[in-house]
């Protein structure tokens, strides 16, 4: 019997390099002892998140950790913006002048670009992939809300909301993918 994959990923993202394998091993052992209690594993994963992130921040030297994380978030956000602009230029060249097609293109391309940014963000400086990804997701979400407020009236609200969801989801998915690769 295997522990819930999403809960394992959450732990992989939250734990420091030093503790990750031991924590996953301990939980796997107790999970088998409990004959595969998924709810119990989820409870452990969720409740472990805050103390593990605190350890990762403390080990990284508090202020230095946040400074490095912030720089990587800025770099990653810059990457998203650059890729979105490039995708937009490509759409101008390739797609017919259709409002619907353009919206679909934006929504479809936002997710992989954000995922790439999330992946790179935790790779650049991440000790706690989860904290790093959350910082980036909040940043992306706030700037998305700002652009939503400033966007032309003809753009529907669901488009901006979808774009924010695709980007924040992409960031978290990219960071999760990095955490899984690191643990393999």
């Amino acid at each position, binding site marked *: 019997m295997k522990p819930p994959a999403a809960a394992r990923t959450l*732990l992989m993202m*939250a*734990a420091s390099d*030093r*503790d990750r*394998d*031991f*924590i*996953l*091993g*301990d*939980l*796997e*052992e*107790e999970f*088998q002892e409990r004959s595969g209690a998924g709810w119990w594993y989820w*409870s*452990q994963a969720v*409740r*472990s*998140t*805050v*103390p*593990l992130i*605190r*350890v990762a921040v403390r*080990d990284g030297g508090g202020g230095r950790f946040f400074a490095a994380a912030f720089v990587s978030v800025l770099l990653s956000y810059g990457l998203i913006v650059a890729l979105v602009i490039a995708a937009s230029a490509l759409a101008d060249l390739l797609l017919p002048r259709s409002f619907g097609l353009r919206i679909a293109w934006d929504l479809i391309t936002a997710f992989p670009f954000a995922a790439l940014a999330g992946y790179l963000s935790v790779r650049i400086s991440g000790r706690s992939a989860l904290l790093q990804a959350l910082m980036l997701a909040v940043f992306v979400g706030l700037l998305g809300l700002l652009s939503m407020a400033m966007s032309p009236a003809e753009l529907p609200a669901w488009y901006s909301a979808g774009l924010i969801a695709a980007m924040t989801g992409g960031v978290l998915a990219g960071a999760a993918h990095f955490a899984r690769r690191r643990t393999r």
Partner: protein
Amino acid sequence: MAKGEYLGEFEQIVLLALLRLGAEAYGLRVRQEIAERTGRDVAIGAVYATLDRLENKGYVTSRVSEPTPERGGRAKRYFEVIAEGRRALAEAQHSLAQMREGLTESWRMS
């Protein structure tokens, strides 16, 4: 003892669990020992965060075992309380005992 080196309640509980478990003290067993004796179902992350802190303070040491299949091929990290940790724990317990001294049992009720 320098400021910041005082033992919190949970740190004392974890040190006592390590002493009780002896050579079998690793994260999972520490968590289970605490649950069994205190009724507190603590998160494994909180146990490791505390063990890391105690190791940084120089109160415990750890060693890594061979990987085992029932743990998905992962190793265990065993912890042991060293002399400095025992001394800090004894001081913390002594302080509590000193504070309790002279109080009647009625303090529990009020």
